[in-house]
């Protein structure tokens, strides 16, 4: 029986661990790399709806949760430009909310 301290320095065990983590890296790459794009796009579609919810009040769409979503606006500011361009609006759609 080895204790933890010893096993940490056992070169064979180290090598096995390195090999295992390499195997895990390869397996994960193989599993995910082909579908990364499709999954990211599906997630973005959901996020787009969320953006619309958060910014809806400013565009004249009544939103009962406006009081809460207002808090989220600064957090989503970074994504705002990407979002409005993706939605087919070259410039910020909001008069008082400049973007680009």
């Amino acid at each position, binding site marked *: 029986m080895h204790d933890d301290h010893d096993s940490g320095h056992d070169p064979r065990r180290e090598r096995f661990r390195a090999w295992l983590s390499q195997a*895990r890296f390869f397996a994960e*790459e*193989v*599993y995910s*790399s082909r*579908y*990364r*794009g499709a*999954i990211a796009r599906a997630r973005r579609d959901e996020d787009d709806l969320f953006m619309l919810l958060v910014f809806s009040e400013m565009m004249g769409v009544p939103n009962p949760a406006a009081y809460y979503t207002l808090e989220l606006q600064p957090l989503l500011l970074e994504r705002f430009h990407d979002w409005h361009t993706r939605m087919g609006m070259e410039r910020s759609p909001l008069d008082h909310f400049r973007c680009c």
Partner: protein
Amino acid sequence: MSAIVLLVLGLAGMAGGYFVYSKFIAEKIYRLDPDFKTPAHEYEDGVDFVPTNRFVLWGHHFTSVAGAAPIVGPAIAVIWGWLPAFLWVVFGTIFFAGIHDFGAIWASVRNKAKSVGALTGDVVGSRARSIFMIVIFLVLLMVNAVFAVVIAGLMMNFSSAVVPVWGAIFVALIIGQLIYRRVLSLPVVSVIGVIALYALIGIGPSVPIQMPAEVAGFSGNAVWILILFGYAAVASLLPVWVLLQPRDYINGLQLFIGLIILYGAILLLNPSIVAPMVNSDVPAGTPSMLPLLFVTIACGAISGFHGLVSSGTTSKQLNKETDARFVGYFGAVGEGMLALAAILAATAGFASLADWQAMYTAFGAGGVNAFVEGGAFMIHNGLGLPEATAATLLTVMAALFAGTTMDTGLRLQRYIFQEWGEIYNQQWMKKSAPATLLAVGSCLVLAFGAGGADGTGGLIIWPLFGTTNQLLAGLTLLVITVMLVRLRRPMWYTLAPLCFLLVMTIAALLIQLRTFFNEGNYFLLILDIVVLIAAIMVAMECAAALKRTRAEMAEQGD
């Protein structure tokens, strides 16, 4: 003739192609540059554009392009004898498929990783792009219909595979959840998945499920086709991570294990080939070998479908331009190896010539069944696995490949319908469900229209599928050739395969046109005419584009 000799000859030929010919092409024709900034680096976004390790990328590329087609095509084509199929697979891989797949990656990488469809528009012209879209639609239509027929046939003939094939879907669903919820690490999940799949294969022969010959007025085959399309429609609407992603992964693992088992069995058993070298006694109704051989074996020798994978996904992840040779050319070699295994199984896996002839009673009759039975014979005698288990293993391999291709094919077809909804401003067609219904409907029409209400004659369209696939390959080769002309480099290495393909495809279409007319199969006659028109348009587009580009270059040169 010993199967090992043929195996070694084939592998040596393909290895020579990789080490000598592809090196020459990489250095002198495509002139790959290790310092070129690939799109994966230039547009790196962590989503689509990700520089990827070349071995991982090769694994992806290979498992995406290898499917049921390199098994079905060669297994049908050995009806003309083993030599023609063998030569076309080996030389096709070396001089056609390798150059095509490798070139498609190169062309895409040099053009911001655009897809071949977009490249056809940019490099050749917008008219060529429209033809491209039509050909893609035809390929998808035929691939879905023909694979449904293939799987239905397998389910009817090998009832022991029903439980493992459908069980594999549940295995995929479960491992998808385990991975998504990060319950276990991926290597552990992989091992569990593979064990579960092979356990299912093990119990398959003890729980056979036989579809009754007739259910509610439909034949057993037709019922399987309907079930398969029902499944594929649902599967293509699910998010990719739920089913498609884990299914692809398990399939990839299974492909490598299956190839190792098959090659191992051949090496241990060393069966002799019982099929004739060139079959002078082909069953009545078998079409002429020339040109039909070249469209019967598409995947495994050259396939346009690979260009879609090369340019759509692989090119966005290429780390260094020089990796294109390994990923593209060696990917084609991998597929050639699968086709070679299929040829050997379908020619050497029989006890005698009479047994082989009993299998190949008509054109299209042998096919994937010959692969399964021949392969099972070799695995049983070579590795000692019970014959029923071996047959189940190979049936599951073929059916899972065909099934995954159907999932993806139907999904892609749905996108095309949705795009048409966008172009022609049809709101209803833009939605997923109606677009999927249209896709399934069009495939069902083809699956039943081709072979009557029992759905057994669908393999008649196999060569027609080959022709559309070759046309797609022709368009990709045209893009590469035009690029080479613009760069003032030798164009013969891509132009010669292109001309050969077009001549063979058009000749095959004309011969089939006569056959369909004589048989009074007007449905396929019309389909043949549509493909023929597309083929002639592709040929004229090639001539026009090359003439135009050469004239441009001559003007610039003055």
